[in-house]
């Protein structure tokens, strides 16, 4: 960091996260200098940077101390003294996996865009690198101001990604995406300012153990809800998602599905639950209802989709409903299931969008009706797609099963009718995914897609890591839930403790 930007170490000086945030930004700056016609140099630079970044964050996986709920890999420097703002990064059990997933997703996005992007190649990869930096920044920020900077800054390259390299309806989709998310974000900004006014700090770690007045918690919960619900997206503010996911280029869809929409759910875990525990508990039933509506509504809509990408986009609404359901069950199964399902959904839906992108590059159609018998034409591809379909459905042995199962247990524990309704969502999910698979890969070979070549080595390499993750998490989930245990337990303690504190305050006022 530049000495005038940041100075004075406050606490911790681990470089891992700082490098992870700024290496892609530096790569983007470097790519600015490359001649725009030297496409392969640009691509290789992007690939090298994203792989280097992934290698750089591997210590987060190997050296992470799973026994503590404390922030790790912390670095803190003074940034804007006038407002008591620090450059403050660190990860705990909730965020660590998302940093890893972001770094992995970027590599895959570079690979899948290798031949798909032909226009403005340089700008595309610069935007992608900036997105990576911002994504990792969001997940590792521990200062609210800094969090907000990354949260908003990410909109710029994302808007460009959808708007420049997207499909026919890209202009509408891009501005819709931008305005929806911006509206939510600015309300959160006012929430951030209010918290700062009340406590005098932007330090999230401190705020996670600060008891705010219950009435204020309620107001703040809704201010932050505006931002997070749009990002997740929760019913009824989900309408930007199908447009943006469908029109975005493959890499954009993958980023949106795998990472960006997780930021909303992450926000609930990072802000809403620990900072407004009492408010969270009182609105949890409402949130669970909204989640179930999202699960069923998203699933039913999927049944009537004719566009491959749009179907997968709507399935995200349904799957993210499971995530928020898990989170607002407010018990250990639900929370861990929710976090794990966020990772799972990132892996599965990311993979599905990659697959659709690969086949679209060959056929130039996204209509389901234009496909049929693809398993005969592209057998290897069909195999991959099948695994991801099963994972999406939640077949035991795949990662989808573990996540959904935990969430359903959590949901049942919290509220039986909600659990039952959510379980029907699983069935609807199986219907639309399997039906989709049948229409696209079986039946007679459609003339329009006859003679397509099977996926190349590069594409296999792109899908393989996700395939491994599907089974790794599916068979050995504790390798991943192990990261969360300590943090989630502490979070639950905070929720119960907060509740007790609120009760005590109530009793005190009544006695007085």
């Amino acid at each position: 960091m530049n000495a005038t930007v940041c100075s004075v170490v406050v606490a911790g000086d681990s470089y891992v996260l700082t490098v992870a945030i700024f290496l892609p930004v530096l790569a983007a700056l470097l790519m600015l200098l490359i001649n725009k016609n030297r496409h392969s140099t640009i691509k290789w630079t992007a690939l090298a940077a994203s792989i280097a970044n992934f290698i750089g964050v591997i210590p987060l996986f190997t050296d992470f101390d799973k026994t503590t709920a404390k922030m790790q890999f912390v670095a803190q420097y003074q940034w804007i003294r006038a407002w008591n703002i620090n450059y403050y990064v660190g990860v705990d059990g909730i965020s660590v996996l998302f940093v890893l997933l972001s770094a992995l997703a970027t590599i895959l996005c570079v690979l899948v865009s290798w031949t798909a992007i032909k226009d403005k190649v340089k700008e595309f990869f610069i935007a992608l690198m900036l997105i990576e930096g911002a994504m990792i920044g969001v997940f590792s920020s521990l200062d609210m101001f800094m969090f907000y900077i990354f949260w908003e800054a990410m909109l710029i390259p994302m808007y460009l990604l959808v708007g420049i390299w997207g499909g026919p309806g890209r202009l509408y989709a891009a501005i819709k995406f931008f305005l929806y998310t911006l509206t939510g974000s600015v309300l959160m900004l006012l929430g951030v300012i209010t918290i700062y006014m009340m406590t005098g700090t932007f330090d999230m770690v401190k705020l996670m153990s600060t008891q705010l007045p219950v009435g204020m918690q309620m107001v703040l919960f809704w201010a932050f809800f505006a931002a997070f619900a749009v990002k997740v997206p929760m019913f009824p503010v989900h309408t930007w998602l199908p447009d943006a996911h469908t029109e975005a280029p493959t890499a954009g869809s993958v980023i949106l599905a795998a990472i960006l929409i997780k930021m909303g759910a992450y926000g609930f875990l990072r802000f809403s639950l620990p900072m407004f525990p009492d408010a969270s508990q009182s609105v949890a039933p409402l949130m669970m209802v909204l989640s179930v509506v999202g699960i069923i509504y998203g699933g039913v809509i999927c049944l009537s989709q004719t566009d491959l990408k749009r179907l997968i986009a709507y399935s995200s609404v349904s799957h993210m409903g499971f995530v928020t359901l898990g989170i607002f069950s407010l018990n250990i199964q639900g929370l861990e299931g929710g976090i794990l399902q966020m990772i799972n959904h990132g892996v599965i839906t990311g993979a599905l969008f990659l697959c659709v992108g690969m086949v679209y590059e060959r056929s130039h159609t996204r209509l389901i009706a234009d496909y049929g018998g693809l398993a005969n034409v592209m057998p290897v591809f069909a195999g991959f797609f099948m695994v991801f379909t099963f994972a999406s459905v939640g077949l035991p042995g795949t990662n989808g099963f573990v996540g959904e199962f935990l969430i359903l247990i959590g949901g049942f524990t919290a509220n039986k009718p909600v659990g039952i309704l959510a379980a029907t969502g699983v069935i609807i999910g199986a219907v639309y995914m399997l039906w989709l698979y049948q229409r696209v890969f079986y039946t007679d070979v459609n003339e329009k897609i006859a003679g397509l070549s099977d996926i190349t080595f590069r594409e296999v390499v792109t899908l393989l890591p996700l395939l491994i993750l599907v089974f790794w998490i599916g068979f050995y989930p504790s390798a991943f839930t192990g990261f969360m245990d300590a943090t989630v337990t502490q979070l639950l303690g905070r929720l119960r403790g907060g509740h007790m504190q609120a009760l005590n305050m109530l009793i005190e006022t009544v006695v007085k």
Partner: protein
Amino acid sequence: MQISELGPLLPELIIASLGLVLLIVEAFLIKRKEIVAALALLGTFAAFYSLTYTSFGPAFSDMFISDGYGVFFKIIFFVNLILSILMSVRYLKTEDSFHGEYYCLLVFATCGMMIMASAGNMVTLYLGLELMALSTYVLAGFNRHDSKSTEAAIKYFLTGGFSTALLLYGIALMYGVTGSMDLKAIAVYIAEHNVRENPMSTIALVLMASAFAFKIAAVPFHMWAPDVYEGAPTPVTAFMSIGPKAAGFAVLGRVFLYTFAQLAPDWTTMLIALSILTMCVGNVMALVQTNIKRMLAYSSIAHAGYALIGIIAATPEGMSASMNYLLIYMFMNIGAFSVILLLNTKDFKGLEISDYAGLAKAHPIVGAAMLIFMFSLTGIPPMAGFVGKFYVFMSAVRSGYMWLAVLAVIFSVISAFFYLRIVMYMYMKEPEREVELAHSNALGVSLGVAAAFVLLIGIAPQRFLEFAKATVRTLYF
């Protein structure tokens, strides 16, 4: 009068003599008119540098006050002047409307602004305001052969004259109530007497607020702005959209926040109404514009609304938020106008928003710069516009105007739509024609400086914030 009393006036003296020198030099230079520009730049830099040697304190029996508060605004005026001169060199050649008085008028207008920012007496304030106004009236109509430019000048002149009359009437009434023209004496009188009961003081307050609102182009006193901004020569538009606005805010701050501090409940109500109307009309009207200068005119109206929020907070923190906002606004606006000027060539005006179609493809650097300015004007981090808005909203929330902050953020979401339309045209549409850029190093410099500061203040605002904070303290001498 003693010579020592001239110390506080050093920058004003330099700028005023610069204007006079320019007038003479221009008459003797037949061919190389660029020398006038170079001389103007040199003089402005000298005045800028002299700020460090200027002694603080009142001069001429409190008619003039040299303090940190004034210095902050003078920095804005100087940077605005320097960048405006840089932007003008090429434009005057292309439009073939070079007359030596041009730079001289810019300099005199700046001198007027400086006097406004340092006025310690209603009379000095009025003099500064008139010097600024008369110079800008002429500048607005500088493209003599262009009917739009002439129309702009006459409109500006008539409405401007009207607002000056309001100001004078307000000053007269306030004199009637307090028996003084001196800002400090008025403040003391108001603190000791209950003037709020006196309807005359309220009327005076309304009249003065209206006059200042006219200068900062706040709704409903904005009617002149879109036509004048569209008709005036583009560098003059850039100059006018910042200088007189900042000067208006300087005066608002000194007169309302300091002199009328005791009347705060009255004037905050007025300013709140002004601010909401300004943000609403500015942002909504900008949505439907097809001419980029007109769009930026409405955008500039809207930004006055945001900056007003800081003054409404009626605290030193709020004022420093407003000042900081103006500083940032200057860089982003100058930047946006520099890009507009780059598109202006002999046979292509480039003033329609559709002219920006595909610009980023043909000219990636210019496109990227415009992208930075547009996102900054929207208030998206990590650009400076976000820091400006953040500070203003923070001061509003601290003073208990949460609802005003909510309205303001909603309006800034609306503003995203028209700012991003420019980005959309540049990056997401295919070019309709080949756009050639004006070749001008001076213009490139102003663009580069603006972009650099927009990013710098966005990423490392610490020094700028502290400077604004420190200077605003001197307001309460």
